[in-house]
């Protein structure tokens, strides 16, 4: 992956969030406060603008800039969490023009660790962690098995989506949905759903790029 592809990833994520904002807000209306779509849309719009204004030269810088922008523009729970994930991931990458899938896997690992440190959520708590953790697992496994970025991202996207769907029967223990107790059961977690979009964006751009397609 190079900085251009990382930038495409963020733009694809922004497009997916823009298209999916209505659904994210709907999920958040059911068990939260109905702003998750608007929050991420505002944030990723700012990310795209920031990356366009001064395009970074490394993947690391792209992720740090995106994370910092989300942190300072989104607010709510998802702003610091997505922000810290991307910042931690970016900081874990070498400052080289391109990064290998294994390096990206380590970076995504650092991102998840940062989310869990800041938010305190474990798998099963019905949060974005329930999409992020299986996505990371799938990505790492694929990379360890020799898959290229495209294939690994594809596996991660599938696992993230499945993980998001698996939040439906969970009872929330973190975030706003936890106030509902039993009544949080039966709804998909909005943050897990947006995490699904985020990994799907990675799969989309890396497969579109012939060099990464498998």
């Amino acid at each position, binding site marked *: 992956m190079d900085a251009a592809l990382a930038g495409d990833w963020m733009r694809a994520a922004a497009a997916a969030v823009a298209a999916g904002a209505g659904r994210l807000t709907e999920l958040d209306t059911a068990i939260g406060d109905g702003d998750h779509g608007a929050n991420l849309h505002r944030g990723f719009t700012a990310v795209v603008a920031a990356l366009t204004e001064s395009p970074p030269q490394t993947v690391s810088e792209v992720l740090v800039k995106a994370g910092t922008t989300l942190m300072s523009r989104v607010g709510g729970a998802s702003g*610091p969490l997505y922000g810290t994930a991307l910042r931690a991931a970016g900081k874990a990458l070498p400052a080289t023009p391109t990064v290998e899938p294994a390096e990206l896997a380590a970076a995504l690992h650092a991102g998840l660790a940062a989310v869990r440190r800041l938010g305190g959520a474990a798998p099963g708590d019905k949060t974005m962690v329930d999409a992020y953790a299986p996505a990371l697992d799938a990505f790492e496994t694929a990379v360890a098995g020799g898959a290229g970025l495209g294939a690994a991202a594809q596996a991660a996207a599938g696992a993230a989506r499945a993980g998001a769907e698996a939040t439906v029967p969970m009872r929330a223990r973190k975030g706003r949905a936890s106030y509902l107790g039993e009544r949080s059961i039966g709804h998909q977690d909005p943050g897990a759903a947006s995490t699904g979009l985020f990994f799907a964006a990675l799969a989309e751009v890396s497969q579109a790029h012939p060099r990464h397609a498998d």
Partner: protein
Amino acid sequence: MKKFMNDPADVVAQALAGVAAAHPELRVDVAERFITRAAGPRPGKVGLVSGGGSGHEPLHGGFVGPGMLDAACPGEIFTSPVPDQILAATRAADGGAGVVHVVKNYTGDVMNFQLAAELAADEGISVRTVLVDDDVAVEDSTWTAGRRGTGATLLVEKIAGARAEEGGGLAEVAAIGQEVNTSSGSFAYALRAGTTPAAGRPGFELPEDEIEAGVGIHGEPGRRREPMRPAKDLVRSGLDAILAAKPFPGPVIVLVNGLGGTPLIELYLVFGEVAAYLAQRGVRIARQLVGNYVTSLDMAGMSLTLCQAGDEMIRLWDAPVRTPGLRWGA
């Protein structure tokens, strides 16, 4: 959804422009999104800063002024402010004696304020945080996000604000704020959900004969759906939940708070029932406040808050306050 607005995305900024025009005694930084007293920080005075999502007006911006907050930072609707914004408000409130953050216990608020406090510390501003988590409808547990901050936020801001105004040190101001929170319990009912401009429809739909019990102030459904009952019964159940969660051996400050869409005549009727039932339960009311203070856009509903208050807290409650949303003795 019909609201007095132009573009849903611009509601907060345009409302802030209105606040700026309406209150020359405040300084509103519309770009950076914070509100301070026009006079600026008083050197040597501990600064009191609060903030959270918009949609709870007059909380928090309406509580900026002598005797209460030094600064408020409103986020998007129901979305906690971002660290930069909180940092800017913290700087603007700092008179050199440190700043107390009053934070309602929501994941987003907690994280954003925490990040801001770290940034402020980097700049040499001492920050103490008072976490408000008074809503007894939510079970308290270390495994969950814990209880929400609701009506007691007003009491914390008023009482800690009075202590700061009269020259209390950073630790003292934070301590009395935390004590107010520990001494408070709240419970809320919704008759009709509010509508956020972004979602464009109510957070939940209720049949004509049902209500949500144990709601928060962000349009989320409550702990359970119940049949509608007379005000007298709802007041009893709500107060029972509060009295079961915490001991209230001494006199209390009572807040009967409208959630935005409930008219004052109903809130007064509710307060009448509260006064009658507390008398029956042997709880003495030292002070009371009835009105729309900690709202949830246009949600029809009300919250009850009790705060166990000793002489010192009552003295600070009675101290002068001069803000757009709360004003007495000054």
